């Protein structure tokens, strides 16, 4: 019951703001709505008993990536962009593609619905507790190598970003 309310609230918020992200003309507004969409997603995570992921989402995505986005938007802020055409001329092609994809995926899910066990068969939420410890354990034992690779990836990305944005003087 309460569960349901929470889910509908967050899901609706997420989808609504996602649509706004794609349709807003002003980039800053898009960014704001993306933030809300991300927060809504974080709420969904919370509802799925993924507290750690929830806070990671907030700290990394909202507190980190989105700040970067806003920052860059302000650096390259173009007033002319507001008067330019915001969609490509072939926008309907993309729309059709997306709709087709959606139809196909819906069909797939619908077909496979019987394979999906209902929520009643889901294990109790307690198996994901204590969430942080479990995630940490998984990260540092089973997924050690990917973890390291991810760190290397981050390093490379950092260097690349610096090189890219560095003013040629």
């Amino acid at each position, binding site marked *: 019951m309460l*569960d*349901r309310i929470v*889910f509908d609230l967050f*899901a609706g918020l*997420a*989808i609504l703001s*996602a*649509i706004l*992200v*794609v349709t807003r003309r002003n*980039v800053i507004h*898009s*960014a704001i709505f*993306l933030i809300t*969409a*991300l927060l809504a*997603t974080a709420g*969904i995570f919370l509802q*799925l008993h*993924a507290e*750690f*992921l929830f806070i*990671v989402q907030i700290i*990394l995505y909202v507190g980190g*990536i989105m700040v*970067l986005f806003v920052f*860059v938007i302000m650096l*390259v802020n*173009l007033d002319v*962009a507001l008067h*330019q055409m915001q*969609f*490509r001329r072939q926008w309907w*092609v*993309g*729309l059709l593609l*997306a709709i087709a*994809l*959606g139809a196909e*995926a*819906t069909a797939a*899910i619908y077909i496979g619905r019987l394979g*999906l*066990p209902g*929520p*009643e068969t*889901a294990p109790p939420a307690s198996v*994901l507790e204590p*969430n942080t410890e479990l*995630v940490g354990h*998984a*990260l540092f034992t*089973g997924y050690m190598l*990917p973890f390291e690779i*991810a760190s290397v990836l*981050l390093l490379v*990305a950092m260097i690349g*970003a610096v090189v*890219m*944005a560095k003013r040629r003087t």
Partner: protein
Amino acid sequence: MIGTGHYLFLSLALFLIGVVGVVTRRNVIIILMSIELILNAVNINLVAFSRLVGSVEGHVFAIFIITDAAAEAAVGLGIIIAFFRNRETVLADEMDLLKW
């Protein structure tokens, strides 16, 4: 009660919106944002399934994806800044030097 299907549809919706954004928008920054949306949809799927099977591996993968998103955002925005300095534009269909 909500089943996994709900989450699947939610993520599907977000995914499609992201796709539409990527394919139709001209502003590169918004395209990047749409990509973030897509990644989020994936995350939702992962977390939902890990709730279903009751293991945190989905969370781990979600974390990896978020890391990936951070890296992608950093590099992408760096490229955008560099490009903007050279061409005074952030419109994707003016970035067509890839042709030759």
